[in-house]
C-alpha cells in the first residue's frame, strides 16, 4: 500500500516526538540491576501473630506505594517474607534471607528474645536490620553496644512513661494506693518499674498494694480480679498488649472492678477493636503506641492508610502497621540520601546505615526517624477512653501526643537516672 506523504510525516513526527520524550526523562540508572529485596520476619502464629500481621500490612502498603511511584531509584521493591517464631528458628530464617535470598535489608521482628538474637547476627553478617518492635535496652547494651547495621525500636518503657505522666497529671492528690497487673516478662516488669518511679518523681505518695504477674498467654483472670478487689486499689496499672487485655477488662467489669477503680492501660490500644463498650469503661487512660486510627489531626497519608486498611481488612489499623510502614520508607529515604552523597551510584550497606542514623521521614504517625544511636523516634498517642463514638468499642475522647524525645530515655542514660533528672 502506498504511503502518502501526509501519513509518513504523521508517523515520523510521532516517532520523533516519542524519541524526544524518552530522551527528556532520564532512563532509571538502576532498573537493570533487578528489584530491591526487602526481607521481612513476620510472626504468624502464637501471641505475637496479630502484631506480626499488622506490621506486614503496613509494610505491604508502603511497598505498593513505592512501586507505584517507580520504586527506589527506579528499582522495584520485592518483599520476601519469612516467619518469626522462636530465636533459634528465626535466626535460621534470617540467614536464609541474607545468604540464600540475598535480600538488601531485613525488617520485622516483634519479640524481644528474637531481637536479641537477630541483632548480633545482623552485625555479624553486615546486613541492615530494621526491627519493628520488641526492645528492652538491657540485653541489647550487652550484645551490641555500638550497632552499625542493626536499628532498633523504641524502648519498652516509653508508653509506660507517657501513661504515668498522664496519670500523675490527672490523678494528682486523688489516689493513695495502686496495683499492678502486668505480664511476667521484661516488658511487663519494665513498664511497672517505670510507673512506680514516675509516681515517686511526681510526689504522688502512692503505695503499691498488690503486684500481679500473670504469664503472657494467660486467659483466665477471675482470681486476679478477685485479688485486686480484695486489695481495693485506687488505680490499677496494666501493660497488657494482646488478647489478655480485653479478657481482663471483661472479667474485671463482670466483677465490678472497672466501676470502682481508675485504670491505666498503657498499650491495650493495640487491640482496640476488642475493647468493647460492653465491658470497657470510660475514663481509662488508654495507650495506642504510635498509631491512633481516629486522630482528628491525622495527616492525609495516615487517613489514606486507615481507609485502605478498613476497606481491605474490615479492621482499623494498630501501631505495628506504622512500624512496618516506617521501616520501609526510612530505608528508601536513606538509600536515596546515600546515593546522592555517593554521587549517584547505588550506595553500599555502610553508606545506607550511615544515612539511616538521624534520618526523619513522614510516617503514618507523623514525622519519625532514627536517632544517632539507631533507636527509633516516634510520636505516641494516648488519652481518656470514651463510649461516645459510632463503634462498639471504646475510643479516645481527646488525644494526647508525646514524642519519644520526651518519653524515651536519651542515649547512654539509665531509666532511673533520667527520671530523677526531670523537672516536674
Amino acid at each position, binding site marked *: 500500500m502506498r504511503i502518502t506523504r501526509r501519513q509518513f510525516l504523521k508517523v515520523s513526527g510521532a516517532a520523533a516526538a516519542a524519541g524526544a520524550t524518552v530522551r527528556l526523562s532520564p532512563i532509571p540508572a538502576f532498573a537493570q540491576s533487578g528489584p530491591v529485596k526487602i526481607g521481612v520476619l513476620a510472626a504468624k502464629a502464637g501471641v505475637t501473630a496479630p502484631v506480626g500481621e499488622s506490621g506486614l500490612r503496613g509494610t505491604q502498603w508502603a511497598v505498593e506505594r513505592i512501586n507505584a511511584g517507580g520504586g527506589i531509584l527506579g528499582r522495584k521493591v520485592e518483599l520476601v517474607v519469612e*516467619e518469626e517464631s522462636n530465636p*533459634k528458628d528465626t535466626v535460621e530464617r534470617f540467614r536464609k534471607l541474607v*545468604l540464600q535470598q540475598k535480600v538488601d535489608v531485613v525488617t520485622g521482628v516483634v519479640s524481644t528474645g528474637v531481637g536479641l538474637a537477630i541483632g548480633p547476627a545482623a552485625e555479624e553478617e553486615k546486613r541492615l536490620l530494621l526491627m519493628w518492635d520488641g526492645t528492652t535496652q538491657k540485653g541489647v547494651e550487652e550484645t551490641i553496644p555500638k550497632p552499625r547495621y542493626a536499628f532498633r525500636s523504641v524502648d519498652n518503657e516509653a508508653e509506660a512513661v507517657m501513661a504515668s505522666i498522664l496519670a500523675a497529671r490527672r490523678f494528682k492528690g486523688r489516689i493513695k494506693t495502686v496495683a499492678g497487673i502486668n505480664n511476667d516478662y521484661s516488658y511487663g516488669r519494665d513498664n511497672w518499674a517505670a510507673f512506680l518511679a514516675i509516681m515517686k518523681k511526681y510526689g504522688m505518695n502512692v503505695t503499691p498494694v498488690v503486684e500481679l504477674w500473670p504469664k503472657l498467654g494467660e486467659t483466665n483472670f477471675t482470681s486476679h480480679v478477685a485479688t485486686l478487689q480484695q486489695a481495693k486499689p485506687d488505680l490499677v496499672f496494666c501493660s497488657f498488649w494482646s488478647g489478655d487485655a480485653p479478657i481482663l477488662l471483661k472479667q474485671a467489669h463482670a466483677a465490678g472492678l472497672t466501676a470502682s477503680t481508675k485504670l491505666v492501660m498503657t498499650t491495650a490500644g493495640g487491640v482496640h477493636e476488642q475493647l468493647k463498650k460492653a465491658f470497657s469503661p470510660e475514663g481509662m487512660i488508654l495507650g495506642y503506641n504510635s498509631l491512633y486510627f481516629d486522630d482528628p489531626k491525622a495527616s492525609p497519608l495516615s487517613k489514606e492508610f486507615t481507609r485502605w486498611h478498613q476497606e481491605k481488612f474490615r479492621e482499623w489499623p494498630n501501631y505495628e502497621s506504622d512500624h512496618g510502614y516506617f521501616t520501609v520508607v526510612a530505608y528508601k529515604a536513606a538509600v536515596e540520601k546515600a546515593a546522592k552523597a555517593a554521587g549517584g551510584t547505588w550506595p553500599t550497606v555502610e553508606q545506607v546505615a550511615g544515612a539511616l542514623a538521624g534520618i526523619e521521614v513522614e510516617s503514618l504517625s507523623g514525622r519519625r526517624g532514627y536517632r544517632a544511636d539507631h533507636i527509633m523516634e516516634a510520636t505516641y498517642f494516648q488519652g481518656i477512653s470514651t463510649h461516645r463514638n459510632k463503634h462498639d468499642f471504646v475510643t479516645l475522647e481527646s488525644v494526647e501526643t508525646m514524642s519519644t524525645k520526651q518519653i524515651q530515655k536519651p542515649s547512654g542514660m539509665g531509666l532511673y537516672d533520667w527520671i530523677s533528672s526531670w523537672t516536674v
Partner: protein
Amino acid sequence: MTGRLAPAAAVTAAAAVPLLGRDYYATLMLPFFGYSIALLGLNLLFGTTGLLSFGHALFLAVGGYTAAYLGSTLGVRSLEAMLAVALVVAAVIAVPVGWLCVRYVKIYFGMLTLAFGMLFYSFLYKFYALTGGDEGMPVARPSLLGQGFGELDKTAYLIGPYYYYSLALCLVAAVVMWRIVRSPLGLSLRAIRENADKAEYVGVRVRRYRFYAFVIAAVFGAAGGVLLVVPTGLAAPTLAYWTHSGNLVFMLLLGGFGHFFGPVVGAFVFIFLQDQVMSVTQYWRFVFGAVLAAVVIFLPHGLMGLLARRADA
C-alpha cells in the same frame, strides 16, 4: 545394616557441604549435628529402652544455658569447657528427675517428663536475674581447641571450623553410643524394652538400668544443646517448651527409632523438610502434623525401617 559403606559416604558428603558454596544450607547442617547428638541419646531412652520422654528438650536447654552462662557471664570461651560443664550439669539434674520419672512407665513417664520440661521452661522464664527470662542469655562465640578464629566473621566461622568441629563431635558421640548400645548395658536395656518382667526374672535391675539410660540420654541431650545455641547466639526458654520435645520425638520416629542411624536420618529430613515447607506455606505445622500422622500409621519404623526392609527384600 549396610555395613561401613553408607555411614562413611554420609560423613564424606557432610564434610563436603561447606565447600559447595551454598552457605545457607551449610549453616542449616549445624542444628542437624546438634540434634543428631541429642537424638542419639533419646534413641537410647526410647528406641532401646522403650521409655518415651516428652520432656527431653529440658536437657537441650540445660546444655544451651550452660554454654551461655559460661561464655557470657563467666567469660569462659572454650567450647570444650562448655561441653564438659554442660554434661556434668545435665547429669546432676538428670539424677533426681530420672529417679522420680523411671518409677513410672509408658504414658505416665511421658506425662511426667513433659511436666518437668515445662517446669524448667517456667524456671528459665521466671528467674530472669539468673537466666535472662524471656530475653534469653547471649551465647558468646566459643573458641575451638583453644583457637579463637577471631579473624573470621561469624558465617565463615560457622561453616568453617565450627562446622567440622560439630561434625567430629557428632562422630565421637555416635561411636560412644555405638559402644553403649553394644555393651552389656545396652543389651539389658533392649531386654527391658522387650519384656520388663522377664528381664527382672533374669536378674536385670530394671529400674536402675532405666535410670542409667535416662542419665545417658540427658548427657547426650545437653551436648546437642550446646552445639545448637552457638549458631543462634542466644539461649532462650523456648528451647525447653514441650512442643520442642515433641519435635525431637517426631524426628526420632521419622528416622526410625531403634535403628542406630534413625536419629541422624530423622534430624536431617526434619530440618530440611521444615526449611522447604516453611518457605512455601505459613501452615507448615499442619503439613508436619500430617507427615507425623502418616509416619506413625504407615511407617512406624521410620525411614531407616523402610531402607532396612528394602535391603532385606
